[in-house]
């Protein structure tokens, strides 16, 4: 029986970490993710987890300590936001290249500057090419569930990559909402033991990690790393299927909402996808053929599946909560359009909106503007502007 609870997104992630019971959590506090290591350190102090909690002096050290712990053969986890993720930067790449399946809760917050504690996706979007698997979560339930699945996915021998589980700072991290938890013993069985093939504390098979690589081997190592990312999609599906059998909660690579006969569809990550569902329901009640695609797995990007679905629609709006400052479109837009082009699909008209930057509240009315625009494009086939901003004063 699932346990009916009400928790904030941060509480949900901390409880997932408690149930996973990793060997090491190393963290440095930064708003709005601070509560995750704070709650977890309470579990450590209360003796309800076996983990070693390392209160480091910076996020650079937090990720470095996770790299060390995971390389030694343990399970390491952490959480961060915005500039904390920024300070981890060089170590993110080392974790991925060293094939260390560290799991990190990212509570999305805008990268400074300007200095602002609120939500957008400029932090994790910047890390999209660092070699980490990335999940995006609409609410506390998805943050919890994806955390529970993250170890299994990252630690799979065909993958061996670190995993970020992203949710919206404050909007879901600090909102209390209903959630269903899974019993501790079920999670213990589901997550299982971490038994890496190679690790530093194995005296039977001594190895070095992170030595100088140079021209002779780096390319091959990077190619293998890329293969881990290519393999990840299949493993995500397998683990999600097993999770579905355990909990009854079904997770695909992306969620399709009311897309069956839809003509105009928005592609939206995280909490705003929930607001869009509300708007889709209202517009559907008026007979308008609208739908939503909510990507869950963003790295690797599910090109084949996404293109197959998007090719059915007449007009698509991709919403980005981060600007790429490339004078052309946000990161999700670039991925979606390049996926379509690479598969030779040119039929849907695809436009981009940059929205919600720096925590600008995204209202149902804002999302309605987007749907009205793409309904218009679906009807006329005419696109007057590809790269747009939503809800900004100018």
């Amino acid at each position: 029986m699932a346990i009916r609870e009400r928790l904030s997104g941060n509480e949900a992630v901390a409880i997932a970490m408690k149930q996973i019971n990793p060997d090491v959590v190393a963290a440095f506090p930064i708003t709005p993710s601070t509560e995750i290591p704070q709650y977890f350190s309470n579990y450590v102090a209360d003796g309800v987890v076996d983990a070693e909690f390392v209160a480091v002096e910076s996020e650079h050290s937090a990720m470095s300590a996770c790299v060390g712990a995971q390389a030694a053969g343990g399970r390491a986890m952490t959480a961060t936001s915005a500039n904390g993720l920024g300070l981890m930067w060089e170590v993110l790449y080392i974790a991925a290249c060293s094939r260390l399946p560290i799991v990190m809760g990212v509570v999305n917050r805008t990268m400074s500057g300007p200095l602002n504690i609120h939500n957008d996706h400029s932090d994790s979007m910047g890390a999209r090419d660092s070699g980490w698997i990335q999940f995006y979560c609409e609410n506390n339930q998805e943050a919890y569930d994806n955390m529970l699945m993250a170890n299994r996915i990252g630690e799979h021998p065909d993958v061996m990559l670190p995993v970020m589980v992203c949710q919206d700072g404050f909007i879901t991290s600090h909102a209390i909402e209903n959630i269903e938890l899974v019993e501790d013993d079920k999670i213990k069985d589901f997550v299982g033991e971490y038994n890496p093939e190679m690790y530093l504390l194995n005296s039977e098979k001594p190895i070095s990690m992170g030595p100088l690589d140079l021209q002779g081997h780096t390319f091959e190592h990077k190619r293998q790393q890329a293969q881990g990312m290519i393999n990840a999609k299949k493993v995500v599906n397998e683990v999600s299927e097993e999770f579905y059998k355990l909990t009854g909660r079904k997770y695909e690579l992306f969620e399709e909402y009311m897309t069956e006969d839809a003509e105009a569809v928005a592609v939206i990550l995280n909490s705003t996808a929930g607001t869009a569902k509300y708007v889709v329901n209202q517009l559907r009640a008026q007979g308008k053929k609208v739908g939503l695609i909510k990507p869950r797995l963003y790295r690797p990007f599910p090109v084949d599946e996404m293109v197959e679905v998007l090719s059915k629609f007449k007009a698509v709006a991709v919403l980005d909560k981060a600007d790429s400052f490339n004078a052309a479109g946000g990161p999700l837009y670039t991925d979606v359009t390049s996926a379509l082009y690479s598969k030779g699909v040119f039929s849907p008209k695809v436009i981009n909106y940059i929205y919600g930057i720096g925590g600008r509240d995204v209202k149902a009315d804002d999302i309605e503007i987007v749907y009205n625009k793409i309904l218009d494009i679906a009807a006329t086939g005419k696109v007057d502007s590809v790269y747009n901003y939503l809800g900004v004063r100018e």
Partner: protein
Amino acid sequence: MDKVVEIRWHGRGGQGAKTASLLLADAAFNTGKYIQGFPEYGPERMGAPITAYNRISDEKLTIHSNIYEPDYVVVVDETLLASVPVTSGLKEDGAIIINTTKTPDEVRTALKGYKGKVCTIDARTISIDSLGRYFPNTPMLGAVVKVSKIMDEKDFLDDMNESFKHKFAKKPEVIEGNIKALERSMQEVKGL
């Protein structure tokens, strides 16, 4: 209840408006509802105006925006009436609940033409009488449950009794006072 009830709280940092919104979410959750409780975070400092929100529904909630057209507004500190547009978007078939010693008619003049129901509650007196100190959030919580009828009053009091037992496990002496504050505010709220 066939729709989503939306509540907006206005208070000042340190008065417990955020806590009250979370307690309301808790109580509604315990009666089987889907709930959201979330504050609007700003530069947090004692005394600065803060806003917190609740959505309460029989159906799963997916919307994740602030609340612009609330059914109910709760004003924990009446000095905010002069500086914050508390009635902004408030539905005329809803109500505003204000912590003040004034009557609804006396306070209505400060509400910039709001035509809906105005309720008042003297949370200061109730809090000081029953708790010995000024914690306006508990009486305001009682008042909002009374006015909004979002849950059965007895269920609410029973549930709060359990929550307080849990919350104040280390200082059981304050449980009775908190329950008394809830009961009194439910009886004394004016303008129903």
